């Protein structure tokens, strides 16, 4: 059992290192999707809100376009507004003339500093249900959204859903370990699975601060030129050789 836990710890560690080195892949993928959406629609803004529990909310994670920035970081109740409706029902929907709705007007202005005239929203749906909402505000070319727009929006929403599904597993090592354990050992009780997962992941980020400091430093090297990369390689090689020599010396004594 100890050996199994050690293997899980090693796997969790590798996954955590990978995550630290890569940065937030999910956010970057979603950002690229809203960037593409806002360009293709030639719209004022596009944004993606993801559902987060405890308390239940839709959190705007990424946004693009001239009027998009105000939305990032904003949380709205999933039981209100157009994003809330699309989240709750899984139905795509577009409204124009929203300026006629005084309540919508005020809420939007207070929160993001921008009052759209039209808005289209599509659910991010996978087999587990709705994960969030993709929305587009104000096309420059038209005051309303066509059926073609709605179909196109659904394609982008699909991309976002795939991106979320792919990166959620990476991000949530604990969930990944748990699902693998349960698949491999169906007899495992919930408590046993939880105990094994927490033994493997507990204090993962906290322990061994010097090591994680190094990982973070390496992560910062992503933007290096070729020359700088070979320089860092040479330095690391020297340090590693030195460490090996001292270790041998210690053992030899």
């Amino acid at each position, binding site marked *: 059992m100890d050996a199994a836990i050690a293997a899980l710890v090693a796997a969790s560690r590798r996954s955590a290192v990978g995550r630290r080195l890569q940065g937030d892949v999910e956010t970057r993928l979603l950002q690229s999707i809203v960037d593409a959406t806002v360009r293709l629609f030639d719209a004022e803004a596009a944004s993606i809100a993801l559902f987060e529990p405890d308390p239940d909310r839709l959190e705007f994670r990424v946004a693009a376009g001239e009027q998009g920035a105000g939305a990032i970081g904003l949380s709205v109740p999933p039981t209100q507004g157009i994003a809330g409706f699309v989240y709750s029902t899984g139905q795509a929907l577009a409204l*124009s003339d929203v300026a006629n*709705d005084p309540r919508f007007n005020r809420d939007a202005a207070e929160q993001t500093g921008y009052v759209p005239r039209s808005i*289209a929203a599509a659910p991010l*749906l996978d087999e587990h*249900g709705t994960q969030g909402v993709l929305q587009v505000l104000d096309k420059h070319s038209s005051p*309303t959204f066509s*059926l073609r727009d709605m*179909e196109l929006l659904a394609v982008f929403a699909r991309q976002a859903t795939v991106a979320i599904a792919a990166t959620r597993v990476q991000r949530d090592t604990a969930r990944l370990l748990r699902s693998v354990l349960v698949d491999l050992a169906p007899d495992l009780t919930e408590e046993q699975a939880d105990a094994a997962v927490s033994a493997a992941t507990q204090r993962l980020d906290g322990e061994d601060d010097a090591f994680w400091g190094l990982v973070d430093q390496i992560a910062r090297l992503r933007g290096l030129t070729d020359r700088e990369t070979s320089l860092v390689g040479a330095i690391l090689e020297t340090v590693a050789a030195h460490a090996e020599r001292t270790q041998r010396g210690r053992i030899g004594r």
Partner: protein
Amino acid sequence: MTSSELPAWSEPFTNRRRDLHRPLRLKGVTREWAWGGSTGAGVRVGIIDSGLENAHPKLRGRVVENVTVEMTDDGPTVVPDGPVDMFGHGTACGDIILSLAPDVELVSIRVLGADLRGKGTAFAAGLEWAIEQNIQVCNLSLSSKSESLYPVFHDLADRAYFQSTALISAANNVPAPSYPSLFSSVFSVAAHAEPDPWRIYYNPAPPVEFGAWGVDVPIAWKDGGSTVATGNSFAAPHVAGLVALILSKHPGLSPFEVKAILASVADNPGRRHPWRHRATAP
């Protein structure tokens, strides 16, 4: 279904209309016969949605009952509800139905609310209640993706069909199963873009069988307001309104018979009098 097979349910009603060619028309079944003179009187229409704002001027006092589903320890329970609409969407559907069938009675069955957990279960409980109440027409502008609820919705759709309750369900443009909108017994509806509430298409290549106006539809919205909306969920209530008109004039028809009538009077291009059934108010 892969992402490349994204269902574009509106496609036959917009770009590929020649695929809708229907040589068969039932003799004697015209719009005049189907709903001429009907106002929907005597028909109750259940709106399973975000609630109804009874006082909205567009609803003209036609709401006769408001209920909601509460999740209790004993499971979902249907209880009386206030005359409120969480989003405005239920009120929009009610407005569209009344624009075609002004004398129907509307029943609000609110299944969207503060508690999102178990919302599929609440939806199923609301639908079951509507069937038990013998409400003749139910407008469902939402659907469930839950695999575990598949048999529940399948059973409910069958019960509705066998007792002649017509379920009008908005198609969902997502590449995932969605219930009950993909079941054969329901009236599954997607949007077309022609601004005519009386224009419908019958699609001989299901799962989506009917096309109705769902683009830039002027609708009632929250807090006595109004807006302009696009989506399959605004197409479905147009079909619900027509079904109510037919059932008001011909009480007791089964969903199968109503579908046959709608298919026969639809605006599909056909060998006999194409386009002759153009929009005419009853």
